């Protein structure tokens, strides 16, 4: 038996993982006791991370569409068709008629190469990935506020906090290792305030629970600031020394009294005052947040509201303090770092400003206008103006909002190539399907939510003729006339390091079992734990006054319930891996909509009954779970299940700054069915 030290494939915690291999097959997994964050621990998904690898459904051969069926083809045919089709569209309609959606599950090396493929190969800046659906507001919001969009402290730093505010994060289910550190802090006496409309496990364990109406977070966060200012709990010294723009915020929150916030959010004024005191008087306060904050049309402003909170209380740059955006995928941080974004190259260098640097490095002309975001690409595809798309390791048919429009968009394309490890609802619509190697079958690096760049190592051979994406993309780069002679993934990282200041010192021989936290600008730099300790990269951090705005789709008589979508501990995103893992599938085999008894009773809905959930976009059929954990007036649907795809219901209402869709608020109705 062999054991290979790698990194877990599921969430942004990025736990150290050992894969067990017997006779060329993954037969188990176990935690790495040396990993500085996970310390020999794993959640249930991590323990089972190797199981889907040899599932019979794995894509093994390139497929080409013939009519409404797929037939097996050679790599030569699949890749030459892909390159030729994309090139033909570029020649006819320009690079802007093409798009690339990269994989937040792929490695850094793969994201970098895909970004290079789009820009150098296809001459388009239309490159994006699912950060657009989750933490685009964090990237936009914190780049403005702090100069860097990433988690400010290592996850372990949470154990030193004396007060933790968790907003819009179902931490025990989505980021169990982060929850573990929060519980550790609690065990040492830290006060825990959890804000979530639903009574999650963490909310149940909180010292103070705030249950806001979905989409009202700016109102109550501003109210916290209001109380802190009144009661002199802000850190004036920090504000004066290290920030700018506080006066505008002070002015704005004058009117955001706890009473006013109660009217908007439903949170009792006295609870808001208490929360303000807990956080404001804490020696070391930390704020943890996730989709409940970002997936709104005010997502960027919501993030700024939290940034205002930590800046005003001086909770930045020290152990036990900081702002902790919990990134969902194990490499969505890396995908952003690698510039798989329409307006940024790797290292967050703006397309508008750094073009020459990259033209030099890649020896070719590059497109100068920032490109389209993912949903903008979809809208243009619907219109017929975006004609070709390469989708790698993502499943927009299940994960993007308003599935019927996504379907129209993908079907309208002249050419769609999808690269993945399993057939998905998206690959069903492709012209070419390329079989990819999974995380257990290739070399590369992932960057976790705490900026930790760490290795994945090949444990077994990919099935059939499946290939590592970096090899597939290198081949495509060749065919598009861009040199890509990488002998190994390590070589790609050398190129990345040369162009990405934060990764300047990242090399494979430095990564071992612990990886390196960026910024790591040079070969002898040990990596950086806490950001913004001495100074912000922008000099002074920026406050920005933000105000409450109602969600785009209000409830009304026709659709009287607020629909929120989200996740379960046992499944991951569109379920492609977890629904093929027996213990996980057994835990939650079927979709269910959570509904409060006070809403269920008048409709005659009982626990376990089949029901229809409808919005203006569509309807799905699933089981009802009547529970008091979901507040009256709201319903909750997880998005893992293709039998009842939650995104059939959601809308493409976007945050104007970050273009993230408002997954957390749609107007819905429910009936027995």
């Amino acid at each position, binding site marked *: *038996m062999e054991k290979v*030290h790698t990194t877990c494939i599921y969430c942004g915690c990025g736990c150290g993982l050992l894969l067990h291999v017997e006779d060329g097959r993954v037969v*188990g997994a176990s935690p790495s006791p*040396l990993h500085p964050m996970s310390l020999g621990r794993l959640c249930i998904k991590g*323990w089972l991370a190797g199981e889907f690898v040899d599932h019979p459904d794995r894509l093994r051969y390139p497929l080409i569409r013939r009519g409404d069926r797929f037939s097996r083809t050679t790599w030569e045919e699949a890749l030459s068709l892909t390159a030729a089709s994309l090139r033909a569209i570029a020649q006819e309609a320009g690079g802007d008629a093409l798009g690339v959606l990269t994989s937040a599950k792929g490695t850094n090396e793969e994201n970098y190469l895909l970004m290079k493929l789009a820009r150098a190969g296809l001459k388009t800046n239309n490159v994006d990935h699912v950060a657009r659906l989750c933490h685009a507001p964090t990237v936009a919001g914190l780049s403005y506020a702090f100069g860097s969009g990433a988690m400010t402290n290592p996850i372990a730093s949470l154990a030193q906090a004396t007060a933790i505010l968790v907003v819009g994060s179902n931490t025990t289910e989505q980021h169990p290792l982060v929850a*573990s550190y929060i*519980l550790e802090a609690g065990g040492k006496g830290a006060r825990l305030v959890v804000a979530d409309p639903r009574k999650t496990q963490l909310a149940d*364990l909180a010292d103070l629970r705030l249950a806001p109406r979905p989409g009202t977070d700016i109102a109550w966060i501003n109210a916290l600031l209001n109380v802190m200012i009144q009661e002199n709990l802000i850190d004036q010294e920090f504000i004066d020394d290290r920030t700018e723009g506080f006066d505008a915020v002070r002015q704005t929150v004058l009117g955001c009294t706890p009473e006013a916030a109660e009217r908007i959010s439903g949170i009792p004024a006295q609870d808001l005052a208490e929360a303000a005191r807990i956080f404001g008087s804490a020696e070391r306060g930390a704020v943890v947040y996730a989709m409940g904050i970002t997936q709104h049309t005010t997502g960027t402003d919501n993030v700024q509201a939290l940034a205002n909170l930590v800046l005003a209380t001086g909770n930045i740059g020290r152990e036990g303090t900081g702002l902790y955006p919990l990134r969902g995928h194990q490499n969505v941080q890396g995908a952003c770092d690698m510039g798989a974004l329409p307006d940024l190259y790797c290292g967050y260098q703006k397309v508008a400003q750094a073009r020459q640097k990259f033209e030099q490095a890649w020896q070719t002309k590059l497109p100068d206008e920032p490109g389209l975001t993912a949903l903008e690409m979809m809208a243009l595809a619907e219109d017929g103006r975006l004609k070709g798309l390469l989708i790698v390791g993502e499943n927009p048919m299940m994960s993007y909002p308003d599935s019927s429009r996504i379907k129209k968009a993908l079907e309208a394309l002249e050419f769609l190539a999808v690269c993945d490890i399993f057939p998905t609802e998206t690959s069903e619509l492709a012209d070419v399907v390329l079989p990819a190697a999974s995380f257990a079958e290739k070399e590369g690096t992932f960057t976790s939510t705490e900026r930790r760049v760490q290795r994945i190592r090949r444990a077994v051979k990919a099935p059939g003729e499946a290939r590592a994406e970096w090899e597939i993309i290198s081949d495509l780069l060749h065919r598009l006339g861009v040199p890509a002679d990488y002998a190994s993934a390590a070589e790609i990282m050398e190129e990345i390091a040369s162009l990405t200041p934060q990764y300047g010192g990242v090399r494979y021989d430095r990564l071992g*079992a612990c990886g390196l936290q960026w910024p790591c600008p040079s070969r002898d730099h040990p990596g950086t734990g806490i950001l913004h300790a001495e100074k912000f990269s922008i000099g002074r951090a920026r406050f920005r006054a933000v105000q409450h705005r109602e969600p785009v789709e209000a409830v009304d008589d026709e659709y009287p319930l607020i629909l929120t979508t989200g996740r379960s501990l046992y499944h991951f995103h569109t379920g492609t891996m977890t629904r093929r893992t027996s213990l996980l599938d057994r835990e939650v085999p079927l979709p269910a909509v959570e509904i409060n008894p006070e809403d269920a009773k008048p409709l005659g809905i009982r626990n376990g009954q089949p029901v229809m959930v409808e919005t203006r976009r569509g309807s799905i059929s699933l089981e009802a779970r009547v529970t008091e954990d979901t507040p009256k007036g709201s319903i909750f649907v997880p998005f893992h299940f293709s039998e009842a795809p939650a995104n059939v219901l959601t809308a493409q209402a976007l945050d104007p700054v970050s273009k993230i869709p408002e997954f957390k608020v749609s107007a819905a109705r429910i009936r027995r069915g």
Partner: protein
Amino acid sequence: MAFLPQECLVPLLTLLSNRMEVVAPILVEGVPVFASWSGQPLALKDNPLLPPQEFFLPQREVLFRYIQDCGRYSFEEAAGKARLIFGIRPCDLRALAVLDRIFGSDPMDQSYFDKRRSTVLVALNCNEPGEDCFCDRLGFGPECSEAVDLQLTEIDKGYLVETGSPAGILILKEHPEFFLETSQSHLLEKCEILGQAREAMNSCIARSLPGIKEAIKKADWNALGRLCLNCGSCTFVCPVCHCFTIQDLGVPDGERMRCRDTCLLSGFSRMAGGTNPRISRGDRMQNWYLDKFEYIPQRTGLLGCVGCGRCNRVCLAEMDRWSLEVKR
């Protein structure tokens, strides 16, 4: 009994590895793990986090392949392989003794015993207990209390080697060039070293049989259940835990797999209609403890806990797994 000089250990294992797969603790990126040994430096300081039970009850194994032909099925079982596991500690060896009784009950589990029978065990007694170890407080360890093919104790300049089975005696007989005669001083050294190890073991009250039994009686299972994060880690690292599930992979031909399971998950006891006799996390945790400290002793005559302390190291909810006190 014999004395194995330090420098002879690797040559001995090398020769043995010509005849069978040698599994030993080695370092993978610095992490000590039990894995196939092919000359790597041995990592004998710390007991690996995952016990070697996976070589007898794998996390995933193929029970048999089913092959469909004209509506009928034929079955193929995999052949076993000869192995030697070097460096198994007394606690994990004791756990194997418990598993032997569980899997040996009628009908005997063939897959488990095929592996037991074809594996030579060379145990290593513990000179330095780990932080979480308390085997001695449960009445055995840090020395082997079970018969084992070979039992090694590290003393000055080498190992005291004690045989416990024909297979063990054979190894000494077939490789006389590596072994020297023992003397009285070797035995005295072993007693002294292991005596010191016993002294060094953590002596807090919670980590004892009466301590844990008391904690189980007094525990607020509801409160503990509210904290449990459903990771299953305690059950996966415990050398006595052996719950498994059986599932099929593939149609029309495929494999019937046996996979490790965990009684701490809701689906473990949930029945087809949806009813669940252990519906809360607290119920399931209590059942896990009762199983180890009451039911397994009733069934097998042996305690279902071997004092290795791994469960406490890996608990995501940061629970004290011995005192079972709720901190918040």
